[in-house]
């Protein structure tokens, strides 16, 4: 089977891509996408470690991923709602413009 480091490398690559996207893209939604990607990279890591870990019987990895996915979904929902309300307020979603710290 493919060794564990391969998966780890893949997840780190995905993580970096997500981070790059989040950092570079102007659009808030794309940033959110990047974050989603990062979260998924982490989930991949969990499953990889569970799969190649010491005792697979204890399915902590899977549990973690399940809860992580649930939370990520909730987070995505709230994030997008925020972005929509920001859009309504700022008439733009370009993050560079949205930098007022005032309430």
């Amino acid at each position, binding site marked *: 089977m493919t060794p564990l480091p391969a998966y780890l490398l893949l997840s780190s690559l995905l993580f970096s891509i997500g981070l790059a996207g989040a950092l570079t893209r102007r659009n808030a939604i794309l940033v959110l996408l990047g974050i989603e990607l990062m979260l998924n990279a982490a989930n991949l890591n969990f499953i990889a470690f569970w799969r190649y870990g010491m005792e697979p019987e204890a399915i902590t990895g899977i549990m973690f991923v399940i809860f992580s996915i649930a939370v990520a979904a909730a987070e995505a929902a709230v994030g997008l709602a925020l972005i929509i309300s920001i859009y309504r307020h700022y008439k733009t979603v370009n993050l560079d413009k*949205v930098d007022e710290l005032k309430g």
Partner: protein
Amino acid sequence: MPWIVQNLWLIPALPLAAAAAIAVTKRPHRRFAAAMTIGTMAFSFLLALCAFAHTLNRGATGEITRQVFNFDWFQMGGDTVQLGWVLDPLTAVMLVMVSFVSLLIFIYSTGYMAHDGNFTRFFCFLSLFAAAMLGVVIANSLLLFFICWELVGLSSYLLIGFWYHKPSAAAAAKKAFITTRIGDVVFFLGMLWLYSQAHTLLFYDNAGNGCLENSTLSRMVGLTTTGGMMVTTGIGLLIFCGAAGKSGQVPLHVWLPDAMEGPTPVSALIHAATMVAAGVFLIARVYPILDPGVAGVTGGSTAALTVVAWVGAVTAVFAACIAVAQTDIKRILAYSTVSQLGFMMLGLGVGGVAVGMFHLITHAFFKALLFLGAGSVIHGCHEEQDIRKMGGVRKYMPVTFAAYAVGMMALSGVPIFFSGFWSKDEILHAAHRWPVSSVPFYLGVFGALLTAFYMTRQMFYVFAGTNRGGSEAHGEHAGHAHEPHESPAVMTIPLVILAVFAVVLGFFGTPAWPWFQNYLTGEHAASGLGELFRPDILFTLSLSTAVVAAGLWLGWRLYGRDPIQPAGEPDVLERPDHPVMHDVFTWLKHKLYVDELYEATIIRFNAWCARACSGLDQYCWNSLVMLAGYLVVGLSWVNRAFDEFVINLGFDAGCGGVGLGGRLLSRLQTGRVQDYLRVIGVALAALALFLMWGCSAS
């Protein structure tokens, strides 16, 4: 306790009160001052006579009566300092002598000072002086003695410097005061040493442990200083220095001749009778310390007495030589006083208290007489003091001449009739029997010779020949006005009284009838005419007569035969043709350059020290202070610089830094979400790196 002993303090207190009264009154009442002074002095004289009478009726034991009255002055730590006064023959004799002579001199000075503007001040000082002198006499504690001793010094300074507008008078007063001060300092050391050893300064104590009494002395005799010297000897020597200062012994005699600057009654009172006698009285009073044997203590050493004797002898000869070459009438008498004081010290040193005191009493009277005579001569010759400008005064002032002649003969020791002969003979006799060495005896004889010589020289200079006064100075017109004239009665009467006493006193102390000695010492010496012809007494009597005769003849030979003509003519002794005699004479004329010697050594040394101190002060301390000043200024500069550059700038830089930091940090909070994310990314990487390296390392 008889009332006289208790009220003995009244005798000095009265003149003191008079002085205070005169000082207090604002406007100078001449009559009031004179009356007060003479009145109080007369009353003191009466009290002195009572005291004298009291001491006369001695108890059966024949022991001299000594009554003491002590009281606590103040408490110092554990022990209390006590003062008090004592009445014993020595005190009584001195009381009578001082009060009588002072009374006479007060009466004399009312006439002498009549024309002086500061009449009241003069009499105030006089009565102050008298009070101090009487205080010295009655003191039973060395401390009270010292206090009055200092007062006497003060009043002598005031009186010598009475005509303070004369620079020479002021200088003389200062000189007198300082020289006596030196002696007093040493005297003070002696007193301290005595107090540390004897733990009391009282002479005599009812309980018997006064410092002059047997118990204390026997204790002190055992003590020796590190140098092996007996403690009593040491104390004695120190006290003798004080006495030497006040009585003008050799090293410290320089002030006495200069003290003649004061008015003549002052010289008479202070520098003839009383103050100078105080030194001799001091030695007489503390005699048991010098010679513990007197107080019945065995084993005491009499080294101090030998020193006193030697100093006395040397002073006698020394002063006599100088007197020979003097030209000022009062200066000659001054040196004669110094010489006679030397004789008294010699008497004390060799003979004991009685011998010294007898010469003191007799000397007081005839020296007072001589000085007052000189005063009236000066008064008569219109303030002329140089004997070379006088001459032939006997024609103009017969009473003064007669009294002066009696005084001269008493002083030079003309046999039988005159007191000087008996007292000086006693001294010579004692010196002759002195076991230690016979040199003082020879010195004494030579001194007597010189005394007779310079007195006759003075007589011929002043009274013999024609009057040389004022002729060459003022030319022809006022010749008559400068004729010497006789002094008024108020001045001549004291002279006559003194003359009588100069003669009468001698008979009290003759070997034939030594009443005075018995009175003073308390033991009964043999009396009667036979004594006179005892071999040793006879030897000294004849020797002194011969000496006096030789002196008189020599004086007449040189000065009497061909009277001195012109004032400016050099003295006979000068003898320009005989180089040695000439040099000797000039040396003597210049007082053996003692003043110059002092000037050269001590004074210059003092001046040098002063300069050194001022130099030190100026360059060393001053610079130090300046340095400190500059240091402080420098420090303040440093402080300012530090404050300005370091703190201010530092603070500003700090604020700037904080501001900058604030701005930097604010840039972090851009508001753009991605910036935050970027920071988080970097932090993540850093943390991971750290963990990796951290883990691998550990």
